[in-house]
């Protein structure tokens, strides 16, 4: 078997012949160096990546904390709005009950509509507007026809069809249907 040679040329143009097996002797060291270099490079990139990921996680955590705080503030605001709405409804109900009681006491013995419905307390109830509709419908549910006029004045509607007008009961049913169709729970 003839020896194999490897020719290399230096930058100055000097040609050198070297038996190939000598290269084989140098190769493991070179490979080792290259692998070590690769490992170092990989480790460096991994460290960079890890640092970037950690920074991203920290940013996400901060964002999540801010979102959590924001959500909590929104929930608190919503609870406050609900509390204020309940309070407003309670105040309106108290005001309605008080005015209705005054009106009943001062006009309850009258049959004349002008004596009943031109009373300041009744007019004040009309002046309370849409907020008082649930309480008016509550009275209608108890078969009181006294509140049809106030409901018509506030809603500017009259759901009582001519065929429903034969009794207070049928007129009340027409108003309660109107209430249900317009989102009022009575």
């Amino acid at each position: 078997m003839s020896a194999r040679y490897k020719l290399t040329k230096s930058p100055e143009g000097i040609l050198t012949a070297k038996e190939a097996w000598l290269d084989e002797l140098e190769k493991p060291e070179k490979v080792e160096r290259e692998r070590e270099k690769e490992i170092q490079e990989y480790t460096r990139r991994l460290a960079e990546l890890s640092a970037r990921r950690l920074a991203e996680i920290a940013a996400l955590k901060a964002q999540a904390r801010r979102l959590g705080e924001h959500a909590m503030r929104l929930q608190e605001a919503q609870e406050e709005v609900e509390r204020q709405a309940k309070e407003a409804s309670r105040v309106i109900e108290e005001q309605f009950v008080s005015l209705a009681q005054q009106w009943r006491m001062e006009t309850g013995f009258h049959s004349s509509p002008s004596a009943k419905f031109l009373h300041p307390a009744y007019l004040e109830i009309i002046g309370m507007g849409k907020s008082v509709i649930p309480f008016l419908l509550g009275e209608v549910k108890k078969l009181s026809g006294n509140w049809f006029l106030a409901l018509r004045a506030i809603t500017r509607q009259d759901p009582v069809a001519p065929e429903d007008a034969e009794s207070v009961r049928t007129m009340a049913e027409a108003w309660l249907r109107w209430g249900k169709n317009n989102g009022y729970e009575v």
Partner: protein
Amino acid sequence: MPPLLLSQSEKHAIHQLLERFFPNLTLDNYEIWSECTDEYNCIAYAGNMGCKKPWWPADPRYSARDYYWPECMPFVDSVENFIRAFQLFGYETCSGPEYEDGFEKVAIYEDQTTKETRHMARQLSNGIWTSKLGDWWDIQHQTLEAVESSHYGVVVQIMKRPRKGLE
């Protein structure tokens, strides 16, 4: 139908309230016969033709169909208008409130200042009068004067018709 069953304290409270508005009731042995309701009023109760809604010549611009009033009758509160409306139901004017066998009588009360009708009462077959006090209770009272007051005025007209079975 018997009088409304009430405890002594309830009866006392209702009597106090009524006598505040109708002072003559203190002199009358009156009784309370129903719960409060605004499903009918004194005129529907006096008309005695089934009480499904109140009767009044209410201005249709405001009261729509909330009140019954005979068609073709004007929407005015005068006693004359009430007389004409009740004539449609078979009543005729008569002179006095004394009980007459076989007849049902009604009385019309007028506010003497405004000359507007304010109330009506009906005579029962035992001669006692019955009134629905607006949205409040039905009462039975011995005399027509019992509910005369600054609110109802005084009796200005009696009408009668042959008595039917319904009380």
